[in-house]
């Protein structure tokens, strides 16, 4: 029987899983795998840093819903991958990471470029594998993709020693999965579904509180049907933006620390939270003891460990968000929609009375919110928006109107600075026909700008808007609000680097807007370029803060609407 090498088996196994792109960086221990990939239809995108490769795989997965794949070598390459893995774990991003390892006989001997990769990444992955027998490769890769994509999705790492990659084996089609301890619950139990319907029928002020679980499960259509059938207004968490169109009359936008008044207050006044694919994150609840104090809670999630973690629900439902909504719809057999006029009037009244606001003076500095509104107006709702973490992320989530899922990509749970540029590269690689516009801050941008070289060389024409306020803006905001204005280590300067020159040096087009009247025309210029990546620097107001705001650990009843409201 003819044999192939472990490395050939690896590439063949990736092909078997339908992989079209691998984001990676080669090196010593992974060398054997970089030879057969030359003969494979799989496209390899050469990142400039392993962290970039990992975030690219994440961006690809966010945009396409498929498993993102990254491949790097051992030691420092594997440790550089820890941040994307941790990011993917907390944001439930399906990802498979392949790492090279020193030869089996050298493992544990402090060999060159050796790190205990599976040990280091154990708490940063959904699962990981250390492969010592080349014959296991087909099955391990198959299991890795299955675990990454099913249940609550997440990152899976496969560590392959060099001698295992070089060893010979006889290829076999991956056998049936043998995972006795891994059986995610998809269909919900009928009893809590029935109980949930009863609570929904009785509720006067219900709110649908939905998040990333809706996007991951592809449950947006079911969500829309259910919201319309029950006439329940919907708040979408940072991870769930686009689960329902922001233009829909039942959509209330984002709740939480920087959520809008209506979304926050609707939950505080609610008598029933219908929570699906959410985890009651501290950035949503504030002080859990004062969060939605009058509400009964229905909590549906595919991950049983999320249910009751923060808030003990009246009705716990374990199941896939899409199936849960389908089951709820089956039981919701009412011919007439309930009359929620009073509640919806109240909610719409808040929307009218407490809108998001900022003040753009024609001759003043550029307001970051204005940049986002102009971007939305000119680039349109079909754009895939990618952000990092911080003020720019909050403004993007607040001011963009998301009308469908998978158009919003950001680092939610881990809050990873430097996420946006590489994630945008991955998103654009996976969805080449879509406009991908990263909205980044200057602090975030400076953490991973080298991936613009990847974008240029690999001809992945993303666009990046840098909201340059010359500072770690969110940290500065907290120092201003909670440390008496004593600013410490937040000043990044506004002139260095010269972003236009930096962009040009990396093969991109660099543009800059310094006054409000330059914002629109500069965005238009950026949209006219489609053969190269474009970086647009917007020189924005250094003092602008994100509002509304609920101070960390505070009660959502004490929402601060603007600078003038500060105590």
């Amino acid at each position, binding site marked *: 029987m003819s044999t192939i090498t472990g490395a050939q088996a690896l590439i063949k196994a990736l092909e078997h899983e339908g992989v079209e792109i691998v984001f990676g960086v080669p090196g010593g221990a992974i060398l054997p795998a970089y030879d057969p990939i030359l003969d494979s239809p799989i496209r390899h995108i050469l990142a400039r840093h392993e962290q970039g490769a990992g975030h690219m795989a994440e961006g690809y997965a966010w945009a396409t819903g498929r498993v993102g794949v990254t491949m790097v070598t051992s030691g420092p390459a594997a440790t550089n991958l820890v941040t994307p893995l941790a990011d993917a774990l907390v944001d439930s991003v399906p990802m498979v990471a392949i790492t090279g390892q020193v030869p089996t006989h050298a493992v544990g001997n402090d060999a060159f470029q050796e790190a205990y990769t*599976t*040990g280091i990444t*154990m*708490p940063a992955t*959904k*699962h990981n594998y*250390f492969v010592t027998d080349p014959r296991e490769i087909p099955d391990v890769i198959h299991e890795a993709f299955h*675990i990454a994509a099913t249940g609550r999705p997440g990152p899976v790492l496969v560590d392959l020693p060099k001698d295992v990659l070089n060893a010979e084996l006889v290829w076999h089609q991956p056998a049936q999965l043998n*995972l*006795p*301890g*891994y*059986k995610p619950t998809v269909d919900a139990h009928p009893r809590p579904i029935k109980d949930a319907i009863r609570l929904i029928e009785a509720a006067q002020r219900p709110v649908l509180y939905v998040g990333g679980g809706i996007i991951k499960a592809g449950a947006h259509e079911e969500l829309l049907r259910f919201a319309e059938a029950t006439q329940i207004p919907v708040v979408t968490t940072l991870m769930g933006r686009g689960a329902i169109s922001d233009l829909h009359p039942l959509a209330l936008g984002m709740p939480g620390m920087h959520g809008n008044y209506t979304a926050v207050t609707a939950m505080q006044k609610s008598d029933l939270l219908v929570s699906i694919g959410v985890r009651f994150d501290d950035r949503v609840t504030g002080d859990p003891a004062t969060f939605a104090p009058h509400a009964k809670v229905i909590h549906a999630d595919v*991950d*049983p*460990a999320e249910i*009751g*973690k923060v808030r003990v629900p009246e009705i716990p439902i374990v199941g896939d968000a899409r199936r849960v909504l389908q089951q709820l719809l089956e039981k919701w057999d009412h011919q007439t929609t309930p009359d929620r006029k009073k509640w919806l009037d109240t909610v719409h009244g808040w929307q009218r009375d407490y809108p998001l606001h900022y003040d753009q003076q024609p001759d003043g500095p550029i307001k970051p919110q204005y940049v986002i509104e102009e971007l939305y107006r000119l680039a349109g709702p079909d754009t895939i928006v990618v952000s990092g973490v911080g003020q720019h992320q909050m403004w993007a989530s607040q001011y963009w109107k998301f009308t469908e899922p998978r158009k919003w990509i950001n680092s939610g749970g881990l809050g990873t600075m430097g996420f946006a540029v590489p994630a945008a590269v991955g998103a654009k690689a996976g969805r080449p026909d879509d406009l991908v516009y990263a909205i980044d801050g200057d602090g975030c941008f400076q953490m991973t700008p080298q991936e613009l070289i990847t974008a240029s060389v690999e001809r992945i024409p993303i666009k990046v808007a840098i909201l340059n306020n010359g500072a770690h803006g969110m940290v500065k905001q907290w120092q201003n609000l909670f440390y008496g204005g004593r600013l410490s280590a937040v000043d990044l300067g506004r002139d260095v680097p010269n972003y236009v020159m930096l962009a040009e040096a990396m093969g991109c087009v660099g543009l800059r807007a310094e006054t409000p009247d330059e914002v629109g025309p500069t965005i238009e210029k950026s949209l006219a370029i489609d053969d190269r990546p474009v970086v647009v620097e917007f020189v924005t107001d250094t003092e602008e803060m994100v509002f509304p705001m609920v101070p960390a650990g505070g009660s959502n009843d004490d929402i601060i609407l603007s600078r003038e409201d500060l105590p």
Partner: protein
Amino acid sequence: MSQHTLSVLVENKPSVLARVSSLLARRGFNIHSMAVGPTADEGMSRMTIVVDAPELEQVKKQLHKLVNVVRIMELDPAESLEREVMLIRVAATPGKRGEILEIGTIFKATAIDVGSTSIAFTVDGEPRKINDFVELVRPYGIVELVKSGRVAMARDVRSRKLKAIR
């Protein structure tokens, strides 16, 4: 902090012990004892973990998320069988030898090594019995003490009351 006994059925594979103990370590819980061994099914191992923790509901769910963890039960001491094995070496001058051996007899402890200055016993049984034996011989001087860690299983008649996750 109270003591909880978990009986965890896991796949018999490398690194499973590390995954389980790492999860408990993340929460800062101290593992009082942990006994691991294969089950009747060669592919599976059983861990009996005694852990000091205020409550274990969340940790049990998180443990269950580990791909190699098949089943978890929290055992109520009142409704389960618990056993432990101890090796103990007690200081024993010739004059005290008789007294110490007598205590051993009461506890069905077997003397397995008698030297000029000490006696080594093996004792097995319920953890409380073992602790009582330790306290009785403590005045003579304990030279060395080794415990196996607790192993436990649910009692048959009441086992249906125990809540198993999945």
